[in-house]
């Protein structure tokens, strides 16, 4: 059977070069980087630092020294979720400013963290004194935050503004540079969740002007369970994991050496391939959209048609439900993702689609196609060829479809 994976925004296949680079660190070179004073520890210490440089270079941090005791501005974490949690919690926990601004279309790792902090700052004993206030900025129908909304929402007590770089469901890219500049005028920190952009489009922390930036290895052909938080020098952020002093005592815990090395190589590969790859994926996405919209009536494209990730396409199909589409496509060997959060028990449609003004009943029928380096033109053609029939089947069954 065909096996066409078009859910690369959920996770990607680690590149063979990545796995190969990891292997020695799962074998011979297993030493603990914290064991500085003997051989095998020194090798892994150096490997971690090399990966830090590779990660840094991908996001415009070029001056990381060879000294493994100097994480400089790249701190390794267990993934994008931890990076997001750290950025928000670390920015308000020990600070007197207790106002957070974020947007309606953030990833749950940001939204749920903000909500938790709004409830109690982790402490219901003195919730009144410590709870944060959270302002959620709206987005327009293409997914863009309006800089004026941010300007109005900022206060003297704003500790941090967190706006994601590109959205994981619809791919819209925010004007981060402008938003960060506005934020800094009012003295707040600016964080961006760049989990969907790092490795896919150029990301330069200095050009963007952000203080904090989250990334995750498995979104660009690195391994799962490894990520990083960029923390601009001078940013006051609380430690996230207390313990043995790793990562300059800000994020303790024995380093996931193999994961870190893998993420480093993934960064290097991304840097090399990015330009050509983005162009290729952008063309494939257009082919896919044209092919589908020519063959399937009443379908709509969600998100911004231009200011978006090259490899992500979100389509709404009238008269069909997302999970059903997903499962009928799976029967044909095509793996996509449904915008609906149906699976989580409460049958809520995607908060992202609602945020851009898609109606509840429409949001359920949306599908995300996300491409990667592994996606071929044949894959796309196969989807164009098979999807119309599958969708017709579903619509024939549908109560709401009025062919």
């Amino acid at each position: 059977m065909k096996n066409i994976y078009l859910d690369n925004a959920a996770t990607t296949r680690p590149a063979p070069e990545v796995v190969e680079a990891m292997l020695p660190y799962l074998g011979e070179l297993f030493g603990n980087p914290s064991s500085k004073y003997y051989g095998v520890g020194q090798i892994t210490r150096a490997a971690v630092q090399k990966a830090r440089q590779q990660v840094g270079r991908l996001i415009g941090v070029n001056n990381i020294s060879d000294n493994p005791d100097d994480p400089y501005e790249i701190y390794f974490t267990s993934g994008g979720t931890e990076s997001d949690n750290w950025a928000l919690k670390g920015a308000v926990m020990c600070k007197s400013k207790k106002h957070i601004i974020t947007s309606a279309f953030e990833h749950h790792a940001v939204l749920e963290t903000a909500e938790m902090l709004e409830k109690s700052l982790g402490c219901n004993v003195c919730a009144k004194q410590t709870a944060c206030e959270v302002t959620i900025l709206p987005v327009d129908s293409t997914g863009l935050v309006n800089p004026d909304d941010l300007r109005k929402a900022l206060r003297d007590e704003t500790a941090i503004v967190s706006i994601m770089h590109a959205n994981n469901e619809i791919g819209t890219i925010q004007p981060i540079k402008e938003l960060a500049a506005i934020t800094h005028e009012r003295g707040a920190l600016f964080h961006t969740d760049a989990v969907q952009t790092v490795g896919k489009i150029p990301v330069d922390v200095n050009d963007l002007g952000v203080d904090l930036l989250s990334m995750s290895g498995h979104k660009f052909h690195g391994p799962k369970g490894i990520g990083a938080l960029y923390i601009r020098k001078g940013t006051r952020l609380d430690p996230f994991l207390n313990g043995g002093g790793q990562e300059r005592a800000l994020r303790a815990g024995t380093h996931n050496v193999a994961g870190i090395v893998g993420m480093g190589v993934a960064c290097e590969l991304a840097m090399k391939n990015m330009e050509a790859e983005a162009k290729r994926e952008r063309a494939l996405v257009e082919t896919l959209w044209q092919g589908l919209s020519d063959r399937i009536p009443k379908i709509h494209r969600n998100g911004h048609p231009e200011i978006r990730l090259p490899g992500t396409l979100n389509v709404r199909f009238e008269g069909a439900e997302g999970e059903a589409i997903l499962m009928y496509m799976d029967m044909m060997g095509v793996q996509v993702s449904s915008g609906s959060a149906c699976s989580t028990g409460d049958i809520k449609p995607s908060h992202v689609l609602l945020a851009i003004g898609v109606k509840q009943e429409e949001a359920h029928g949306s599908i995300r196609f996300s491409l990667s380096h592994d996606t071929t033109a044949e894959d796309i053609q196969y989807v164009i060829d098979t999807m119309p029939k599958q969708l017709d089947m579903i619509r024939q069954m549908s109560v709401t479809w009025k062919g």
Partner: protein
Amino acid sequence: MNTYSDKVMDHFQNPRNVGEVENADGVGEVGNPTCGDMMRISIRVKENRIDEIKFKTLGCGAAIATSSMTTELAKGKTIDEAMQITRASVAEALDGLPPEKMHCSNLAADGLHAAINDYRKKHGAGE
């Protein structure tokens, strides 16, 4: 170790009794497109038995499979027997559903009951 049982997958892949019974004796419509699931069951009754039954559904895989299974269970049964088909018995006939999907099996049994009640109302045999 599948999220869905083989039975669910079978009914999902080959849904039985899809469509609308023409000039149905009873029609039940439950759910709400806003919530992402909606279902219509139509029946023809002959000699107090469900002679023909069809469904249309907008919903997830479980919604389709439970609709299909519900129509299979109901077909040929007397009205009273069909009213005995519960949410639980549909789920059981499908070898179980993931916990978060029990809601859908509810929907299908509800649709069947609604269709029967509609029939009874129209034909003066209401509860």
